[in-house]
């Protein structure tokens, strides 16, 4: 039975990490009703940030986190004001933003290939601790535990922000209804810009742990990560950042079980889950409302 227990506990650790992978996408969708198709590419940039911090300066990849947060704030803020207000005034903001972020993802991917080369790279797992961590009789690499711990901390921080701060209340008001938030005197653009940048930073944070959780990293990993994130977010329900934790856990446990018992079919899983969920319950496991027409 060791195999099953390993898959289940590993799945929880893995799933918590994937909750962090998806949560930034969900935050941006919740506030702006836009799907950030460049999400996976931001995670890729985060992963390369961790890689370079380790390889250039020999520091722990964790030092990449503050650097990336600063970087994403510097880039994300102007990007928001350049792109989003303009998009919101178009004929079909949802579809056009989808296409625009897709273009952005191509620009990031191409620049990363030009800048970093097309090779796979990795960070030694010993940089986040040696040996093994024992959980309920199963041993896991320390990096997994650290990644899961940071994910939980980041999601708790997001929860605290959304539910226990003034800005957070305003953010949830914008999520509920942009127009009504506007009439209530909330500075919708400022709230949205903060959420936009926070979504970027969460992607970068997930990226720092990507070399440990996903093995090798390369500039082309973004598209797959975007699809997986989207699957996780939809499983949990779009627009509800906390549902993403459930989505991540479902995904993590399912992928671990697949890799244990049916390894050759496991790469089908995220896509399959995604299709099944959107067809059966497009609003996600926690969703209340269903879109019509």
């Amino acid at each position: 039975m060791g195999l099953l227990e390993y898959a289940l506990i590993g799945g929880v650790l893995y799933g918590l990490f994937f909750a962090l992978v998806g949560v930034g996408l969900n935050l941006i969708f919740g506030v702006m009703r836009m799907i950030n198709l460049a999400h996976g590419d931001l995670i890729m940039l985060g992963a390369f940030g961790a890689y370079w911090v380790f390889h250039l300066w020999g520091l722990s990849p964790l030092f990449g986190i503050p650097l990336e947060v600063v970087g994403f704030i510097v880039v994300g803020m102007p990007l928001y004001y350049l792109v989003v207000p303009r998009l919101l005034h178009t004929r079909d903001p949802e579809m056009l933003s989808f296409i625009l972020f897709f273009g952005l993802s191509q620009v990031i991917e191409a620049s990363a290939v030009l800048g970093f080369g097309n090779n796979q790279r990795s960070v030694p797992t010993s940089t986040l601790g040696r040996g093994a961590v024992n959980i309920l009789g199963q041993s896991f690499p320390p990096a997994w535990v650290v990644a899961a711990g940071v994910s939980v901390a980041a999601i708790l921080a997001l929860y605290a922000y959304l539910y226990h701060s003034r800005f957070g209340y305003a953010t949830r008001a914008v999520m509920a209804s942009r127009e009504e938030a506007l009439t209530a005197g909330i500075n919708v653009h400022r709230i949205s810009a903060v959420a936009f940048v926070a979504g970027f930073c969460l992607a970068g944070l997930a990226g720092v742990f990507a070399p440990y959780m996903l093995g090798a990293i390369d500039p082309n990993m973004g598209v797959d990560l975007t699809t997986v994130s989207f699957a996780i977010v939809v499983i949990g329900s779009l627009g509800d950042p906390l549902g993403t934790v459930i989505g991540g856990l479902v995904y993590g446990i399912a992928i671990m079980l697949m890799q244990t018992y049916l390894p050759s079919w496991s790469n089908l899983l995220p896509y399959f889950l995604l299709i099944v969920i959107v067809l059966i319950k497009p609003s996600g496991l926690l969703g209340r409302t269903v879109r019509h027409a």
Partner: protein
Amino acid sequence: MRRPGVLQGGAVLALLALGFGLVPLFYGNQSLLFSMMAYVALAQGLNVAYGFTGYLPFGYVGFFGAGAYGTALAITFLHWPAVPAVLGGGVLALIFGVVLAPLLRLSGAYFAIANLAASQVLYYVVANPNLTSVTQGPYGIKLTSVFAPNLSYAVLWVILLLATGAAVYLRTSRLGLALRAINQDPVSAEMAGVNLVRGRMVAWLLSALVAGLVGGVYGWHVSVFYPQSVFTLRISIFAIVFVLFGGAGTVIGPVVGAVLLYGLYDVIGISTPEYFQLIYGALIVGLVLFLPEGLASLARRRGWDVL
């Protein structure tokens, strides 16, 4: 403004027919012309779905791959001659389209991503080593026994004209008008008596069929291909970019977009694909922000109603 008519449609068809029919006589690079023609047809097929119904099939390549593999299976296992096998590939893509039809219940981005996921599922099934006895798994398909570059070129030429003809039909017919109404406001269209489900279904299946046929004839033309090469997301992406660039919902737009951008790709993209990716990524961002209706809207601003 008069609605553009069948006459202009005939002119576009004639131009395409003459262009891709005559250029090979004095320009030797058949593989470039073949790929360009394939992308014009794919862009036109995608336009039938996206331009007329607003459903963006991000996994459009799934139909292309289904067509290529359907054709290959018909040749390898049923020993069909190549041309009926290409039709068989088209039918397989059509069946895939019927299977995916429930996705049309979703809207906007949900549909696009679910469709992308569906094409990935198909890719992983085809490339799965457990199915090597059927699809050759990741090891690829060889159709060298039926290799016929000139005949397959001619068949693609016919498919291109059919796809463009379908777009002309949608642009000028009552059905096309109904689809535009659905696209702009589904609820009002339905109240006005437009059959929503039927209209979307026709456009969707037509679009799937075009991609399947193009995929089939592509597989036949190159005669050696791998799952990665016929299921690569790049095919969907190119078709989408070409349509957006030219102008979705028009007949000329996708043709102009595909010819111009594929030409550009051929000059700079094949040796250094990253530069091309950078350019078209920036192009998409620019288009959405400044020219969301594509090149066609430039003409429309001057008062010409582009076909």
